[in-house]
């Protein structure tokens, strides 16, 4: 029991034990049968409230002041000055708040919670508060409305100093209600205009108007953009039903769609439109007509249109202005690729910064409990499912923790063997796919070369894309099957392994195709670029068909199987990773194809658009929300990274290789007759010589000079190195700061320990007498001893806390020590006791006769002890003080209280007299408490005594003990 109590004491000493007590009491309220006690409580509550108000100024301004206060209580790590005192102080404040909150059940909770963290508008604000805090450690009680207003004025001033844009941002980020934000905004605006009007009125008015209209214009644009925003309602519906991880797929799809729309607009605007304007009719041979199969194969009729590279000419279009088709083609594609790269790099870096740099997988259950709930879910079925999923996951994590055991060596080896086998198998599968595609391509070529071009021939061209798409669909399924046999220690690693294998497969397939297009195709055709374009077109189209089939087979069929045939399988989940990879693959095709078929993005737009609706329908009809709440944000980062790294970079290098090293076909296209595509720029520069020499100079000395790139690389390497070192430094700093936080915590617990130890030395002496008295009490059973130790612990706790509070108070007074008027308090106590005794006697009248002696005995003892304690105390204050005496006084008080406690416990068991003792005790509790607090506040009378500590403490202990006693009585009574 004692050990338990000590354990409990350890930390609650810092928390407020009062809170706990009050909570306990309030939770019992429904059972409470004594109307008087209730009334008393309420009365007390009102008083406390009043006191509260008096202390902190009116509640109108209280919002901010409270906010500052709490803000100060937030431990700020290494700013150690007075940080302990801050938290202690906070405790005092909080406990008083708690009382009024409890008795009233919420007088102004709205003000309180907002305030609770409001100060954290920015780190800067916290910093200010901390600084102020360390300068005036005891500003709390004196925190008035003026100060709150001051604070607000400071805020306004700081806001005024910022630019308008920053102002708006800051105001928006303030954790206040709209009304207050509006108020601050108005003040800021007024302040600004008054400041300006002192100088030149007319001009500032004008500029103000202009800035206002600019802002309105900006909001208008934002509004318009929102109107144009695609699929807002659908996104909301999906998010509401399936949560944000599935929504990631659709966001990604939308993002890619935007990419393609941009790319289409650029290509169409700068390449196709000028050509169409110049020469509307495509020069199609008379024997070629549109047959329908072209839609699938992209050959035939399409071959002569602007769809492909071949449809463009190398002429300079002569119209209102000369338009050099070659340059336009080259620069449009180049700039588009560069822009894509930049956008990708930025969104990737941004996503990394946001989602990865700080992510920490260690705090799993904290995450699951506090961050994993998706607030956007609005579907009741999903909510139910989520709840049970979360339950299962929590249970799993608990059992994992308890069952975690080390694997033996052979088991480990076995596992590694399985992993290795799976990797070998999947890699060889991917390589095999690549090889078979290469041979298939060659076979197709031979077949095409052998016979004349016919419809059948044209249909045969669909073989390669068909096989490729089939592989793309089937092999990942096989991979997932393989994944099931492997045992991964954590789920994320499993997902990554699967993802990596799929990426590998697609890279091998695309690599083989690219190799074929780059090395084989140019040698075989006179006009080879359109051939590659056609191949890409077919791949895009067939891939689309397979995506549709995939959602039919993958989702619809397994839904049917799961619901109708084999309920064991259940309704399928939407596999976000696989689907996103499909999208990435499709986008890569479009990027590769942009050089060979500038209008491929148009097809891509159509494809993505249809795919969105298809997937949405398939999702809502066939799928269930994901069972595991995976960390969607990190997955998204990985997807963007994948899109950038192997796929976009691969596509870019392929296009660049084509432009730099391959000879364009002799017969068709904008670049025919040139050695390579890039020589367009050389020709252009040569033509510029004489007219604009600076361009030529730049070209010669920067673009074409190795030295420049060499220097650039060197500089970049140096910069990278410097940043790397910076990162290392920051990492160290972070580690140090973490350590500091931990040390702070340790410091705190060490100090608490020490305090406890000190207080123990006070309370150990009374332990003797109590035990001696034990037998005199009739019921010295386990329960009473329990309560004794309990109260013992309480005394310790309260003493520790109390002492600290007092120390602070003393400090705030600048070293002036504070005695209290003991005579008043003792008188009060006596009065109370007399009253209590009277009541007690009344009650005893109805009690069993044999109880009389013991309870009276106990009471007498209590009274005597108490009297002694008070005498001691008085002596102590009016005479000299030394350690011994102080100890005895503390012991006397404790003794007295415990004796009383016991006496009351004795009678508390009798149900007949329950109401009145309860009420009396309650009254006592309340009064004692109030007295204690009054005393505390009255301690300002200057009196240079040496040892002020016990005076306040005795009062407080009395109060606390009385309260504790009441608690015990309740416990016994019910």
């Amino acid at each position, binding site marked *: 029991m004692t050990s338990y109590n000590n354990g409990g004491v350890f*930390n609650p000493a810092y928390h407020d034990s009062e809170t706990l007590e009050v909570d306990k009491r309030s939770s019992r309220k429904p059972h409470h049968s004594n109307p008087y006690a209730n009334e008393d409580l309420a009365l007390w509550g009102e008083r406390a409230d009043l006191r509260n108000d008096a202390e902190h100024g009116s509640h109108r301004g209280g919002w901010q002041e409270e906010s500052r206060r709490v803000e100060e209580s*937030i431990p700020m790590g290494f700013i150690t000055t007075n940080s302990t005192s801050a938290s202690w102080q906070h405790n005092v404040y909080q406990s008083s708040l708690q009382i009024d909150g409890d008795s009233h059940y919420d007088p*102004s909770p709205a003000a309180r*919670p907002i305030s609770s963290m409001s100060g954290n508008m920015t780190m800067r604000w916290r910093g200010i508060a901390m600084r102020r805090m360390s300068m005036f450690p005891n500003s709390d009680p004196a925190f008035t409305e003026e100060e709150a207003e001051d604070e607000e004025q400071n805020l306004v001033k700081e806001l005024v100093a910022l630019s308008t844009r920053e102002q*708006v941002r800051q105001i928006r980020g303030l*954790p206040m*209600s709209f009304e207050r934000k509006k108020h601050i905004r108005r003040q800021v605006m007024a302040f600004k205009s008054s400041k300006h009007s002192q100088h030149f009125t007319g001009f500032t008015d004008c500029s103000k108007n202009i800035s206002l209209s600019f802002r*309105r214009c900006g909001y208008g644009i934002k509004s318009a953009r929102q109107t144009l925003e695609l699929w807002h309602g659908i996104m909301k519906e999906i998010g509401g039903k399936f949560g944000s991880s599935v929504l990631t797929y659709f966001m990604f799809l939308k993002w890619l769609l935007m990419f393609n729309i941009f790319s289409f607009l650029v290509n169409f605007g700068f390449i196709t439109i000028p050509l169409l304007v110049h020469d509307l009719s495509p020069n199609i041979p008379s024997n070629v007509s549109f047959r329908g199969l072209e839609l699938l194969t992209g050959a035939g009729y399409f071959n002569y249109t602007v769809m492909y590279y071949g449809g463009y000419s190398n002429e300079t279009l002569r119209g209102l202005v000369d338009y050099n088709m070659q340059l336009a083609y080259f620069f449009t594609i180049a700039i588009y690729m560069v822009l894509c790269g930049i956008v990708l790099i930025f969104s990737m870096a941004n996503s990394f910064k946001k989602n990865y740099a700080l992510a920490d997988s260690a705090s799993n259950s904290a995450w699951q409990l506090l*961050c994993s709930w998706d607030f956007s879910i609005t579907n009741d079925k999903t909510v139910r499912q989520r709840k049970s999923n979360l339950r299962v996951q929590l249970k799993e994590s608990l059992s994992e923790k308890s069952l975690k055991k080390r694997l033996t060596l052979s088991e480990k080896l076995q596992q590694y063997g399985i992993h290795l086998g799976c990797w070998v198998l999947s890699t060889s599968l991917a390589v095999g796919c690549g090889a078979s595609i290469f041979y298939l391509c060659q076979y197709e070529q031979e077949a095409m070369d052998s016979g004349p071009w016919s419809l059948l021939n044209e249909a045969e061209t669909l073989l390669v894309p068909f096989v490729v798409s089939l592989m793309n669909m089937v092999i990942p399924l096989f991979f997932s099957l393989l994944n099931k046999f492997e045992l991964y220690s954590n789920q994320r690693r499993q997902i990554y392994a699967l993802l990596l294998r799929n990426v590998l497969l697609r890279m091998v397939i695309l690599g083989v195709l690219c190799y074929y297009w780059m090395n084989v195709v140019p040698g075989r055709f006179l006009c080879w670029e359109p051939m590659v374009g056609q191949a890409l077109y077919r791949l895009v189209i067939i891939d689309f068909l397979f995506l549709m089939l995939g959602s039919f087979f993958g989702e619809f069929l397994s839904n049917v199987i799961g619901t109708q045939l084999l309920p064991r399988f259940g309704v399928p989940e939407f596999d976000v990773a696989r689907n996103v990879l499909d999208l990435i693959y499709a986008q890569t095709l479009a990027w590769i194809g942009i050089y060979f078929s500038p209008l491929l993005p148009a097809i891509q737009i159509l494809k993505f658009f249809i795919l969105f609706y298809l997937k949405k329908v398939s999702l809502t009809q066939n799928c269930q929300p994901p069972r595991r709440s995976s960390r969607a944000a990190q997955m998204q980062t990985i997807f963007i990274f994948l899109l950038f790294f192997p796929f976009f970079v691969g596509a870019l290098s392929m296009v660049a290789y084509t432009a730099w090293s391959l000879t364009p076909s002799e017969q068709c296209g904008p670049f025919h007759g040139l050695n390579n595509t890039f020589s367009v720029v050389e020709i252009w520069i040569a033509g510029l010589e004489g007219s604009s020499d600076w361009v030529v100079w730049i070209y010669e000395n920067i673009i074409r000079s190795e030295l420049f790139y060499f220097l650039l690389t060197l500089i970049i390497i140096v910069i990278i190195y410097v940043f790397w070192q910076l990162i290392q430094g920051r990492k160290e700093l972070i580690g140090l700061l973490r350590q500091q936080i931990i040390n702070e915590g340790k410091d705190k617990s060490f100090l608490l320990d020490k305090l406890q130890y000190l207080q123990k030395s006070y309370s150990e002496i009374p332990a003797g007498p109590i035990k001696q008295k034990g037998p005199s009490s009739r019921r010295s059973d386990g329960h009473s001893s329990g309560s004794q130790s309990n109260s013992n612990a309480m005394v310790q706790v309260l003493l520790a806390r109390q002492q600290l509070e007092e120390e602070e108070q003393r400090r705030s007074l600048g070293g002036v020590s504070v005695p209290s008027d003991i005579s008043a308090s003792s008188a009060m106590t006596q009065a109370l006791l007399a009253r209590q005794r009277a009541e007690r006697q009344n009650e005893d009248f109805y009690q069993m006769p044999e109880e009389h002696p013991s309870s009276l005995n106990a009471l007498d003892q209590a009274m005597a002890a108490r009297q002694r304690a008070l005498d001691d105390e008085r002596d102590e204050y009016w005479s000299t003080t030394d350690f011994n005496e102080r100890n005895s006084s503390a012991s006397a008080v404790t003794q007295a209280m415990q004796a009383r406690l016991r006496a009351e416990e004795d009678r508390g068991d009798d149900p007949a007299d329950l109401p009145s003792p309860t009420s009396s005790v309650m009254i006592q509790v309340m009064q004692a408490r109030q007295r204690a607090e009054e005393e505390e506040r009255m301690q300002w009378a200057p009196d240079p005594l040496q040892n002020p500590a016990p005076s306040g403490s005795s009062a407080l202990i009395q109060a606390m003990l009385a309260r504790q006693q009441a608690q015990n009585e309740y416990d016994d009574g019910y």
Partner: protein
Amino acid sequence: MGNKQTIFTDEQLDAYQDCTFFTRKEILRLHGRYHELAPHLVPMDYTNEPDCKLPLALIVDMPELKENPFRNRIVESFSEDGMGNLSFNEFVDMFSVLSETAPRELKAIYAFKIYDFNVDNYLCKEDLEKTLNRLTKEELTPEEVDLVCEKTIDEADLDGDNKLSYSDFENMISRAPDFLSTFHIRI
């Protein structure tokens, strides 16, 4: 601009746009939603800022909040009187904080308030237990609830006081990137 009926003046809309994360259009949409909740109580004309509050029961019935396990806490956290009565401004405030563009700090502050059931500025075990019970349909055994809560405190508590202060919470949030996307209600 060209609205058939003026609900807000331009100045009001400017104030809304400056102080919340919404555009004019969204503010009007929000007003529509608010009006929808109680057509006879909420006036269409807000130019003179009428004093009108809707009780918690009505707001909690919105489809966006209806299934949310923390719906009452959300609404209470944003209401001035703490009873869950929301004026239109508070209503806008609520969705502004829950909108996509609200910064992490702001969201964290209000999330902390929502999870702080007993309003003592700390997430103590009791709060976590309540949170957990809401998240799991109260189907975990008391021991499991206890274990999970202890683990949570253990993981997130930096200063060793056995409860989560706001700074502990914020620290945890800053390392959970998903929070931004999950603490988000589309309106």
